[in-house]
C-alpha cells in the first residue's frame, strides 16, 4: 500500500526508493488508458478494488461500494487523504492516480461511556 501512496507524494518523500520504482511502473498505464484502478478501504481495513473512468463521477463507485458492503448510500463517508469527497467529484477532478486509496468510513456517534 505504501508504494501506491507514493505516487502523488514524490515531492515530499522522494528519497524512498520503493516509491520511485512504483512511480515508474504506474506512469505507463496512467497515460495509456482512461481507466484507473481505485482501492476502497474500510475502517476495518477490508479492501475492494474498482476500475473507473477518469471522468466518471465517483457517485457510481460509491453506490457500487455501498451495495457491495451492504450499507445504505449516504451512511458511508468517503475520504481521500483524509478529506471528504462527494459524489460529484471525478478522479480527474481530485487528481487521483491509478492505485490510489479511498477510505470508506462509517458513521460515528457518541454521548458517553
Amino acid at each position, binding site marked *: *500500500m*505504501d508504494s501506491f*501512496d507514493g505516487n*502523488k*507524494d514524490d515531492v*515530499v*518523500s522522494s528519497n524512498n526508493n520503493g516509491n520511485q520504482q512504483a512511480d515508474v511502473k504506474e506512469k505507463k498505464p496512467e497515460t495509456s488508458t482512461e481507466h484507473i484502478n481505485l482501492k476502497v478501504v474500510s*475502517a*476495518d*481495513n477490508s479492501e475492494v478494488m474498482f476500475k473507473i473512468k477518469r471522468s466518471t463521477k465517483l457517485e457510481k463507485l460509491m453506490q457500487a461500494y455501498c451495495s457491495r458492503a451492504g450499507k445504505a448510500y449516504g451512511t458511508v*463517508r468517503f*475520504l481521500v*487523504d*483524509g*478529506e*471528504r*469527497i*462527494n459524489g460529484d*467529484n471525478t478522479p480527474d477532478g481530485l487528481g487521483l492516480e491509478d492505485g490510489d486509496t479511498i*477510505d470508506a*468510513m462509517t*458513521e*460515528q*456517534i*457518541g*454521548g*458517553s*461511556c
Partner: protein
Amino acid sequence: MPGSFPRKQKLRTRRAMAAKAPSEKIDQGTTHHQSFSRSRRPLVTDNKARTGGLLRDRTNELVRHYTMPSNGLGASSNAYSRWRSTSQSSSQTESEVLSEFLSLNTTDDPSQSISFDSQSAISIDDSLPEIDRASPRMDDAQAGRKAVGMSKSELWIAQLRKKIEQSLQVTVPAKSVATPAYDLICKDEGELERRIERERQKKSTTRISLPADADSVISSAFKAGFSREINNTPVTAQDIVTLKPGTWLNDEVINYYMQLIISRAEKTSGLPRVHAFNTFFFSTLRDSGYMRVRRWTRKTKLFEKDLAIVPVHLGVHWCCAAIDFRKKTIAYYDALLGDNEECLQLLMQYLHEESKDKVGCELDASEWSMVCAKDIPRQKNGYDCGVFAITFAEYLARDAPLVFSQSHCPTLRRKIIYEIASGALL
C-alpha cells in the same frame, strides 16, 4: 533532693509553675518552654470542672513536693526564686515580692482554703476521691488557727497554691493561642469557599447569548432538505437532529464544526493558527498506524500551526485532544475526566513520525509534555459529551478559558445549530 523525684512528677510541677503565669516572661530553658506550650492548650480550653480537677491534681503535687522531708528548704527557696522571676513584674522590689509572698489572705472563699497540715499533705494520693478524703475543707476559723502555726515554707506553698488557682481561672485571649491544626483547617475551608464563590461567579457571568434571529435559523435547520457544506464536508438536517437536546452527536456535526473552526482561524486575525483534524483521524491512526494518515496533512503545514485539534471518538464517547505547538504540550480533554494515556502516546508518536516525514528532522520528545486535563467543565449526563468536545475545541481555538458548565449545554446545542446553519462561528 530534687533529682530523686520521678521525672513525670517533676514535669508536672514545672507545668504547674508555668501555668501560674502564662505569659512569655518565662525563662527557664527550652524544656520548660516546651512543656509549657504543651500544657497551655488544655488549660485554656478546659471547662471549669476539668480545670478544677487539674488544679487539685497539680497543687497537691506541689504541696507534696515541697513538704517532703528530703526536699528541705533549699528546694523551697529555689522554687521561690523561680516563682518570683516568673510571676512578678520587674518593677517590684525584692521586699515587695517577699511581702506578697509571705502574706496570706484568710478572708478568701472558704472553698479555696485547704489544710496545710504536712501529715495530710504527704498522704494525699493522685486520685481525686482520695484527695477529697485526705484534705477535708475547713471553715475560716479553722483555717486561721492553722495558719498561725505555719512555717515559712508552708505559707509559701499556700500562697503558691492560691496563685495557681487564680492563674488557672484566667482566660487567655483566643488570638494568643497557637492552634496550627485549627488554623490550617480554617485556611483550607476558606480556600474552598473562595473557589466555590469563584465557580459561582463564573457560572453566573458566563452567559451564552444567541442573536435575535436564532429561533428561526435554528428551526430552519431541522427542515428536510437543509444542508450545508464546507470543503466537501456536508451536514444535513438528518445530522442536525443529533443536536436535539438529549441526543448523541454524530461525526458529521463535529466534522463540519471543525471546518468552521478552521475557517474562522483563517479569516480572523489575532486568533491562533489552528488546524483541526476530522473525527476519523484518530481512529485511523490508532487502528491502522501512521502510514495510513501520512498524507492527511499534505495540504497543511502542521508544524507551522499554533494549535492542532484532534476530535477523539472512543466507541460511544467524544473527547478532544489539543496539540499546542507553542507550549509543546498535548492535552486531552474528556468531559467525564477520563484518562487516556494511549491517546497522548499515539499523538506523540504521530508528531514524531510527522516531523520525520514532513520536516525531515527528529522531534525532541523531551521538550513535549502530555497531560489529561482535569480542571475542566464536567459532563453530568450520558449524552452531552459531543457538545463538550465541540465546545472545548471552539474555546481552545481562540485561547479562551473553559468557562462553561453542564448547565450551558442546552444553550450550547442551540448555539452549535445556529453556527452550522449560518456557516460561521459566533
